[in-house]
């Protein structure tokens, strides 16, 4: 059953030069209990989608969508108060460089107490005193769950005294405090070294397996997340070009953009000639105010034809959705 079902979501931002359609008919279908990764180059609008889903956008964005459902809740019709409740309970999000997302002037343990479910973080003073020990216990447990063993001194220290890796773990702990149904991870590991990256991915994977929390992973590094996620969808300049299960995407990429993405993964077993050119698409990503009409890969697409000027329709091949006029259908 689809946990998060987003159909034809488009976001217009009115800037000084007029209205720009940043996200053009994106659709996203996240299966409950799976790890769904949304891959796109930086600036392709994937964190915009996350913000739109969370309702975090500010006034001058115009969000229109045919359907945006979280389970059976219609996110479009929620008032800000209900939406805020949803954000606390149902959806959680973690960001890129985690240290800047932790309040520098507060201890970790105080920040975590804020996030604990309401019945635990008591309101009036007396209950607060007695509840202190239960909080301590809950926080200790959460930190252990995310793999932070020395929870006592991490709890009492300030964000600037912790490394990026531990900060990310603390963010994750805070996110899963209310065991949300959906955890959105917006490029959680880009600013970290390889070792901590692997740790974080293993942690996310463990969370998914043990607690069945569906994870929406936003990333621009196709290689690192591909073997982790069950479903992958690719996005380019605000248009979701292709999405499908892991096997479908890796084995039979249909959209030229997916093919190039797969080619960029370096398997070292291939014998690449010394100093040979790595494969890239010609040209570069168009700036926001000069987006090409129709399929936005148009100018750079090796198989571009005249008809690419019109917006391609999404075609579903047994769960493998593709938006291209000339998909390479291999009949295998």
């Amino acid at each position, binding site marked *: 059953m689809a946990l998060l079902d987003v159909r034809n979501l488009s976001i217009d931002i009115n800037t000084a030069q007029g209205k720009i359609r940043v996200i053009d008919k994106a659709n996203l279908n996240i299966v409950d209990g799976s790890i769904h990764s949304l891959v796109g180059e930086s600036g392709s609008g994937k964190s915009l989608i996350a913000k739109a889903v*969370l309702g*975090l956008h500010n006034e001058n964005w115009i969000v229109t969508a045919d359907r945006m459902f979280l389970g059976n809740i219609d996110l479009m019709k929620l008032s800000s108060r209900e939406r*805020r*409740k*949803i*954000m*606390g*309970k149902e959806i*959680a*999000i973690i*960001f890129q*460089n985690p240290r*800047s*997302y*932790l*309040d*520098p*002037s*507060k201890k970790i343990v105080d920040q975590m107490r*804020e*996030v604990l479910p309401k019945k635990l973080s008591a309101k009036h003073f007396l209950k607060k005193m007695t509840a202190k020990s239960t909080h301590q216990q809950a926080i200790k447990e959460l930190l252990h769950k995310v793999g932070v063993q020395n929870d006592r001194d991490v709890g009492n220290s*300030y964000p*600037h*005294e912790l490394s990026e890796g531990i900060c990310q773990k603390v*963010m994750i702990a*805070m996110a899963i405090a209310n065991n949300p149904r959906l955890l959105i991870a917006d490029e959680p590991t880009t600013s970290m070294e390889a070792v901590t990256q692997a740790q974080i991915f293993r942690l996310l994977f463990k969370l998914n397996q043990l607690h069945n929390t569906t994870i929406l992973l936003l990333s621009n590094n196709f290689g690192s997340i591909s073997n982790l996620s069950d479903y992958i969808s690719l996005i380019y300049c605000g248009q979701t070009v292709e999405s499908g299960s892991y096997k479908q995407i890796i084995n039979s990429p249909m959209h030229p953009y997916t093919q190039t993405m797969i080619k960029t993964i370096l398997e070292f077993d291939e014998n690449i000639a010394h100093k040979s050119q790595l494969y890239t698409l010609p040209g570069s990503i168009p700036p926001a105010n000069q987006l090409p009409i129709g399929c936005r890969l148009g100018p750079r697409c090796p198989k571009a034809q005249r008809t690419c000027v019109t917006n391609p329709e999404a075609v579903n091949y047994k769960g493998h959705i593709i938006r291209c006029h000339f998909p390479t259908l291999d009949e295998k």
Partner: protein
Amino acid sequence: MFNYLLRRIYLLCITAFVLTLIAFTIEHLTVHTHFRENTFTHYLNYISAILQGDFGYSIIDKKPILATGLIAFSSTLELCLFAFIIACIVGVPLGIFAGLYRNNGLDYTIMSLALIGLALPVFWVAIIFSVLPNAFGWAMPIDGNISPIYEIPVVSGFLLIDTLLVTQQYQFDAFLNHMIHLILPSSVLAIFLMSEIIRLTRHAITMVMRSNYIKAAHTKGLTRRQIVFRHVLKNALPPIIHQLRLQLSTIISFAMVIEIVFSYQGAGIWLFDSIQQGDYLVLSTAILIISGFILFSSIIIDLLLVFISPTKRKSLYADQ
């Protein structure tokens, strides 16, 4: 932490030494111009005289300058403190509102008020304020720190404290009278201080609101007011305090001007009268007292900042 304190005190001594140098040159140029023996020995016994607290005697009333100076300066501090409290009570909330609702009606009105507050010449506003109560018919006193009816023996120099020590004779009348005398001058000083605080708070709040941890707080589902009170204020405070410390000397010079208009017996009047009567020895003592205080309070504020904001503490450890 300890050697941070040590380093600050070391800096303090050097600056204090330079201050005594400046004070000595001024005294040398104005009062003791006729000294024959070379200036170095003269400077030495000047320093030894200061260390024993003997700043010389004023030619007007033959009293030791240091004593009168400290008492006068303490009432200036009272004025600044009172004005600071008023300015904070009014300025900080306005600054927060201006910061939260940037670029809409409320923000523009508050910011234009702040701009006007900064542009008003202090002595002119003091004159207007000294005539205002009479125009509106309030019986608001406009002169001196306390009505001469009350005889207050000087114990600590701070009238707020001294008036409380004489309650058996005047109950709370003296204390109340002094507070009423404080209202007008401190509200004039508060205008300047308020606009300064509003400007600083708004700047700090906008900086904090843009930071990532506020976005994270939104995602945690906290209401706007919870976010403001729990996260924004605590992080916005240190830059405000740091900026105010730099403004301390301007605040004190404005306080002195206001005192002269309201003839409020503080350092301003003390300096003004002694210069009028040609008693220039007072100048070098005034420098030492006022700048000494500013120096000392900047150290205290630094320490306060270190306690409040852990990030400052990080820069502190990193320095070793």
